[in-house]
């Protein structure tokens, strides 16, 4: 597959792969004058959430700058379609507030005075201070805090090598609890269910239009729904997802566990489960 025609249409959804090295478009700002712009299309990955959808960066050959970002049609998860955060990556790249160099605080803490420094100085400073702390038995003073741990396993091993329990990220207050549950239950912390072929989909505060994984999952959830799947949503608030549900249960925040246990009890008490499947596939006696 290297071309992306839309069935029954003379228009294509994405540029054919053969032309990604020199893709020509009409400049939208000069339009209706036809001014050609030449682009090199570079596949890349969106990291505005961990779904990691495929992106195509349109590099203007004249300026060397990214002019826009679209979905990468060759990406098996996102299939060329992306959420609002995808095209908005452009704002992050070109943001006037983007920090382009390592910066060092100049004045007193909180004075918001900074000066540019070098990566060498950063590594020098941090390396020597971490080493000193470890040597003096103050390892608990070292904490590694990262917005989103996307380097699976590496930093955990480094910190373990130092003998330090200092890994911290926003995941602690975000998806950690859900992912622990997934790991204990099915051995993978980020499952990707076969929504497209499901007959019933249950979402518990998981969303079609917001949060992690939404784009690849939402594509397939709606596909499943168009094929007749029932969508059940448990969500304290009227989300877009709740709006798309066949059934919406507005739980009180924090009562979801009790709700799930109650559902499990009813399923067990009334024998509403496939005993054979449970025996064959999850060793459940």
């Amino acid at each position, binding site marked *: 597959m290297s071309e992306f025609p*839309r*069935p*029954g*249409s*003379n*228009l*294509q*959804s*994405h*540029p054919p792969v053969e032309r990604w090295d020199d893709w*020509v*478009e*009409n*400049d*939208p*700002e000069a*339009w*209706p*004058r*036809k001014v050609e712009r030449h682009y090199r299309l570079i596949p890349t990955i969106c990291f505005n959430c961990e779904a990691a959808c495929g992106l195509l960066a349109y590099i203007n050959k004249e300026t060397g700058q990214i002019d*826009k*970002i*679209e*979905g990468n049609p060759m990406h098996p998860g996102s299939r*060329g*379609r*992306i*959420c*609002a955060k*995808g*095209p*908005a990556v*452009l704002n992050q790249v070109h943001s006037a507030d983007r920090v382009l160099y390592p910066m060092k605080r100049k004045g007193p803490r909180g004075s918001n005075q900074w000066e540019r420094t070098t990566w060498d100085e950063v590594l020098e400073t941090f390396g020597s201070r971490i080493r000193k702390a470890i040597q003096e038995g103050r390892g608990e003073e070292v904490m590694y805090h990262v917005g989103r741990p996307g380097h699976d396993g590496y930093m955990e091993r480094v910190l373990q090598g130092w003998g330090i329990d200092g890994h911290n990220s926003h995941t602690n207050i975000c998806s950690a609890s859900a992912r622990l549950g997934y790991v204990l239950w099915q051995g993978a912390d980020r499952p990707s269910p076969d929504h497209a072929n499901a007959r019933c989909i249950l979402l518990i505060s998981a969303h*079609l*239009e*917001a949060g992690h994984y*939404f*784009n690849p999952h*939402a*594509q397939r959830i*709606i596909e499943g*729904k*168009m094929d007749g799947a029932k969508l059940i949503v448990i969500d304290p608030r*009227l989300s*877009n*997802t*709740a*709006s*798309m549900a066949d059934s*919406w249960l*507005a739980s009180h925040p924090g009562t979801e566990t009790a709700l799930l246990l109650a559902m499990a009890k009813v399923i067990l008490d009334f024998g509403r489960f496939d005993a054979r499947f449970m025996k064959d596939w999850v060793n459940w006696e």
Partner: protein
Amino acid sequence: MRYGFVIDNRRCIGCHACSVACKAENRVPLGVYRTWVKYVEKGRFPNTRRYFQVTRCNHCEDPPCVAICPVGAMYQRGDGIVDFDPSRCIGCKACMQACPYDAIYVDPEQGTAAKCHYCAHRVDAGMEPSCVVVCPEHAIVAGDIDDPASEVSQLLERESVRVRRPEQETGPKLFYVEAEETAIVPGAAANVGTYMWGTVNEQADRALPPAGQPASPVPALVAYDVEHKRPWDWQVPVYFWTKSIAAGILAVPALASLALGVEVWEHVDTLLGFLGLLFMAVTVGLLVSDLSRPERFFRVLTNPQPRSWLARGAFLLVLYSLLLAAFFLWSWIGPDGAASVLLWPTVIGGVLAAAYTAFLFGQCEGCDLWQTPLLPLHLVAQCVLTSGAVLALLPHSLAPPSDLRRAAVFGLGLGLVLHGLTVLGEFALPHSTDSARRAAALITRGPFRIVFWIGAIGIGVALPAALLIFGWCSPLAVGFAGAGVLAGLLAFEWCFVMGGQGVANS
């Protein structure tokens, strides 16, 4: 070939990816949108849900924005796409008034009109519009509605669809599958301007709940919409007023000569010609200053789009100005009474200059209140009214005082009767559309009610009528009546122009 959209609300999850992709593709500045997702929340907890409606230009079969554009900046392509050329646009905002869908904005950086153009620059390179490509759910489908094999045609054949505001008869080529009534009909959901992420609509009159509508059994609230500022500002109602004075300046003197045999105009012809030219200059100044690209104003004359009443009106204003200038010069330089040959041609030119605006406002299909068939008559009546008022305010030393007063009372009386009856017709007769009724309600019962009842009706009609009936032979009463008429008419223009734009179209 006719390009169109099908938007499938069974699939749309309201994620705004289309809005953002469009912004990135077309470099749309902050605060304006070529496409946006309107949210409506309906029902009472727990039986409630949110509805999403991707909202944008409908690429109408018969696009009113194209008809009204004075310089051909908005145009329809052979493939049905309604495109625009910012390099031609003068920023008159008439297209925004013509669009019954709130789809057009003025680019805050360029000062020129813009809207969804179906990514024509991509289509011509064989690519789908940006919103179609980005949509995670393939809820936006683009294609040729004339080709039975296209996905849009097949959806149209299989599904029941709706368009926005079919009563406007513009032939929208954007079709919604499973449209939600309270989202697709403007005003069907309460719109208080405070949305999920903040208050965006500072225009209190636009936020008025649908007036006099039976309360919906299921409550509905607009949870997100984008702000649509009133396109025309104070210059336009003031232009109505100054143009009435300029266009009617010779009307009552001419009529008085015809009907009463009072030749008052001969004494004040030069003065009236001068006043007419003065008010005409102010009128043109107001029109140019309301353009967002005022330096391009001359293009209305050098590059006119013949179907546009704005362009036609510009030529009528030029014609009348020339007639008036000739009348003024001839009455000033020529022998006494020589300007009489120019009197009636100038009056007729004034009628044209006055009445054309009614046809321009008729092309403003986004403002249903202005669609009244009484408007041409009303604008001529306003000329008679202002002309009478000008005579009433002229110093009595300029002409035989009784003649002057007779002419003034005649003009004021005739004008008040005509003006009063047309206002009655415009506001008291049943309105043809809900939107017109709501605009009228904004004026008579909404935020404009004080200016309307006290200013336009009280000071502008009732007080002068009473003064004329009870003190018609008193010069002071006639003078006050003239002043009241002028002040009241300005109040009326204010209500009619500002209130007429007050009903949201999305």
